[in-house]
């Protein structure tokens, strides 16, 4: 079975984002970019499936600017076997919407015929939480979202999902799309020898046009602004003072 893992290049989660003064978006020039943290977990899970003998090939795919090849190299260094880069934008500030990403991924799935797609539950830049579900709709496949446990057994997979009420376990028919949550596993670091080896692993380069997908956005970004700042607070010296302040503020 092949495993397909879509990985997104996003601003590193430790970077404090800055909104551009003209309100046109977030400043992404010269900031540290990394693999979306959820996607690292998806790559890790795919590699573990291979190590457990349940998968024989792990393919990472990224859609975006050319620089996304760095993200794919990271996936290869972690242990993915090969990568597909789909160039769909030239400017680092162009983001491709989940619907368009899902349409491209659907074509990649058609070509590669994976038994499972492991995606992140959300990308930490746009927090849309949509791509996996959309892909599964386009393919008519089953979906297991927000997975904190995954157990593949032949034609079905058991997926334990993190939901508002706690945990829900469902059984999905394979092939399936599974989107991963933070507690599924702890991703490994790529070792230096593996980083060197990754440079020799195959990376195919395509464009959105190769797949005949129109990536014109459906949502126009009208403006981007800073959230309202909170008024500065005060430090209190003791529990007594805290209780007094809370009573004054009518909070207790």
């Amino acid at each position, binding site marked *: 079975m092949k495993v397909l893992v879509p990985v997104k290049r996003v601003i590193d989660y430790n970077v404090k984002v800055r909104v551009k003064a003209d309100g046109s978006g977030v400043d992404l020039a010269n900031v540290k970019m990394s693999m979306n943290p959820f996607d690292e977990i998806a790559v890790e899970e795919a590699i573990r499936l291979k190590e457990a003998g349940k998968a024989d090939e792990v393919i990472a795919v990224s859609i975006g600017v050319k620089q996304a090849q760095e993200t794919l190299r990271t996936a290869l260094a972690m242990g993915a076997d090969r990568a597909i880069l789909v160039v769909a934008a030239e400017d680092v500030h162009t983001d491709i919407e989940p619907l368009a990403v899902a349409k491209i991924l659907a074509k990649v799935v058609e070509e590669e015929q994976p038994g499972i797609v492991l995606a992140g539950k959300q990308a*930490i830049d746009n*927090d*849309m939480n949509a791509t996996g579900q959309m892909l599964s709709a386009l393919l008519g496949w089953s*979906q297991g*979202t927000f997975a904190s446990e995954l157990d593949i057994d032949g034609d079905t997979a*058991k997926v334990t999902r993190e939901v508002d009420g*706690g945990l829900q376990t469902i059984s999905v028919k394979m092939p399936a799309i599974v989107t991963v949550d933070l507690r599924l596993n702890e991703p490994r670091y790529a070792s230096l020898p593996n980083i060197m080896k990754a440079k020799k692993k195959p990376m195919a380069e395509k464009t959105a046009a190769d797949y005949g997908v129109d990536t014109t956005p459906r949502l126009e970004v*009208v403006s981007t602004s800073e959230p309202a700042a909170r008024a500065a607070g005060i430090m209190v*010296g003791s529990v007594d003072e805290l209780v007094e302040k809370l009573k004054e503020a009518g909070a207790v």
Partner: protein
Amino acid sequence: MAVLLLAEVTDGALALDATAKAVTAAAALGDVTVLAAGASAAAAGAEAAKIAGVSRVLVAEDPSLGHRLAEPTAALIVSLAGDYEHIVAPATTDAKNVLPRVAALLDVMVISDVTAVVDGSTFERPIYAGNAIQTVKSSDTKKVISFRTATFDAAGDGGSATVETIGAAENPGLSEWVEDKVAASDRPELTSAGVVVSGGRGVGSEEDFKLIEGLADKLGAAVGASRAAVDSGYAPNDWQVGQTGKVVAPDLYIAIGISGAIQHLAGMKDSKVIVAINKDEEAPIFQVADFGLVADLFTAVPELSEKLG
């Protein structure tokens, strides 16, 4: 313009708060029809009919809709979509599971976690863990939207919508429910509680998390946790507050032994009053706190519990 709103129904019961908040947001878009779907949903539908601002309720009862599996629920919504320009829901994990599937089947984008309605096609939503607010304008003929409940007030009662029963769509039969693990609790629900007391890694153990729970019970509060506390096994996953957990905006949020990473702040910084207790005076949580106390939580929390009692 007509709006179809997917009510939050769990095991036959309506999540009134989440649904009523979404009704407030949806009412700005047009005439609101609520869809109550489930293995049993009639009672939930009857309750939704009383929410002010709801004009019609559709009740769909079918075993396939029992556990809000994405595929049959999405199929049902798509079968109804023709009559509506907006298809909306509160931004719960159920809705986030279902709505993007609906949107893709309709060939439109989904707009997640909307915090404000500018007009029928223009919406505000937070991005980058709430560090920026984006205004987006949709060019799609249908808009599929989830509303972040923390930013809307719940619609009141006094409505008297008509209730109709409808059938389910064909179940694609792609997935089956196995089990739920839900801890029963007498505490208020995290996303609708007036007071939330949260503990972080600083609490140190599941055992000591009882301190947090004790203070919460004194205040009639819900209990929250940081990701680090959940990952370490001190607290269950459904208590996690933050970018990838729940977003809360209570009147009072007390953060104990939590450093204040942006991913945590994303879930609580719109709370009215924020209290932080941390032994490190440099902890970033103090930057968003209205009242900060530099103290060891193991002495401060018992004292606070006692003095608030």
